[in-house]
């Protein structure tokens, strides 16, 4: 794929903007310090970078910006572990290290002319938001756009205004569910799986892309396949422990696949057998 800056040490990058999306979720817009490296940087939606926090370590973060946006690289991050908690404290002007992009992105070339169904849970929406933006910028190339998003609590939904806006667009369906609602919550209260039946797409010409908790993706897959979507058109992005990002350190293996290298995006058929067993 792209000629990344992934071998060897990271490259220095500077935080050019920081947005707090929710109490624990934030977005860092990064620019590589070396102008030529930034100019040459290319990625595909669904790929990820390794972000390095000085003295602490690296963490894999999917890229949420649009690939055509050439001057910054966007990352939406939940402050959860050592590195991400430290990244949360960074302000514009602070530096990080960046390696990437890594892995296989979404099969956007194959989707042309067909409906796009996006199913996400929790922060799973970050890698998929780059797909939404990709599709919206190239609207004529795709059929209907169906965005299905589930969150545990209404407050966990980030980019709420964007969902509101997307819902008003032609040929675009937005289905959002929160297991626990809140005041003025306009969407469904309950499990996101209850919304699959409402999704409006043509199973003969659609591609579904999923990202989020594995249980949710399982339920989504069952439902979409039952609606007649062929397995070959069902994709998911996997999350595993990734430390080297180049298929070397061994942590992210699921069966024979290295998620960092052979994924993180897989066809459903490639991983469904092992997803049925806890522990892979």
């Amino acid at each position, binding site marked *: 794929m792209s000629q990344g800056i992934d071998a060897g040490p990271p490259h220095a990058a500077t935080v050019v903007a920081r947005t707090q999306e929710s109490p624990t979720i934030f977005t860092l817009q990064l620019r590589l310090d070396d102008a030529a490296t930034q100019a040459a940087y290319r990625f595909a939606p669904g790929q990820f970078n390794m972000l390095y*926090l000085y*003295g*602490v370590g690296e963490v894999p973060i999917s890229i949420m910006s649009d690939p055509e946006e050439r001057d910054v690289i966007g990352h939406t991050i939940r402050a959860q572990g050592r590195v991400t908690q*430290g990244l949360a404290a960074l302000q514009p002007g602070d530096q990080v290290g960046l390696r990437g992009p890594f892995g296989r992105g979404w099969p956007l070339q194959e989707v042309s002319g067909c409906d796009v169904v996006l199913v996400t849970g929790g922060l799973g929406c970050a890698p998929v938001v780059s797909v939404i933006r990709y599709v919206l910028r190239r609207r004529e190339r795709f059929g209907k756009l169906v965005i299905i998003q589930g969150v545990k609590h209404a407050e966990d939904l980030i980019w709420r205004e964007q969902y509101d806006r997307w819902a008003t667009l032609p040929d675009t369906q937005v289905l959002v569910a929160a297991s626990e609602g809140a005041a003025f919550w306009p969407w469904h209260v309950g499990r996101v799986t209850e919304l699959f039946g409402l999704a409006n797409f043509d199973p003969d010409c659609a591609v579904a892309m999923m990202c989020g908790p594995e249980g949710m993706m399982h339920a989504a897959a069952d439902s979409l396949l039952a609606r007649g979507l062929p397995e070959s058109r069902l994709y998911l992005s996997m999350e595993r422990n990734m430390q080297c990002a180049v298929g070397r350190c061994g942590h992210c293996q699921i069966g024979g696949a290295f998620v960092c290298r052979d994924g993180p995006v897989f066809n459903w058929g490639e991983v469904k057998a092992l997803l049925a067993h806890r522990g892979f």
Partner: protein
Amino acid sequence: MNTPKADPIKPRVAVHKFSSCDGCQLAFLNLGEDLLTLAGRVELVHFAEAGPLDPDTDVDVAFVEGSVSTAEDLERIQHIRQHSGLLIAIGACATSGGIQGLRNGVFGENWVTQIYSHPEAIASLERSTPISSHVKVDFELWGCPVSGPQMLAVVNSLLLGVTPRDNADKVCTECKRRGYPCIMVTRGIACMGPVTRAGCGALCPSLGRDCYGCYGPAENANTGALAVQFRSQGLSPEAVVQRFQSINSQAPVFLAAADRIRIKSHD
């Protein structure tokens, strides 16, 4: 060293002692030159072993050595918690109750009268308990004593503004990285390494000695399987119990392991 720091404010640090032998404070002091480098990056406001004394002041980070073992300890730990941003328990006493936890459940008046010439001077609680039994602990550093490199790593993480890295892997992982052949296998020695938390750098195995569990239980410690192996190596049930009832006798995993063997051998 001369580059401008993003944040020139030095965190205020205190080192407090409870019921303990001072060995963990010595682990700090034994850092030598490293301690001096470190001292340039923090403000040590209370550290009795090293000099500064100001136990009541507000600090960003309090390191607490020792277990809660007296009525006075009970009050003091609450006071320290209220005056500390982060509280870090260091060493076996602070994390599991320590060697003095061996008295828990067997501490009676007749012991005190037998051991001490002035039993009236002894005012201990019945049980020696870890700091986390009394107040919220932000991070625990196990070991008897804790190791210098471990302490440095914790302080470094705090200076970087992140949670220290918790390594709950077994001693064996460090032992094998260092290339020491397993003495359980070559000599049939009952080694606690396979159930004990890493951090010491496999110090005892490096000297051909068995690990005696001073860093406390590792994650997923299969004490039952190790006890079976110890028995097949010729240890009596009592000897196996003693392996688990040592420095960290009150750590729940080791306590349960010993209890299971006691119950079994009474069946």
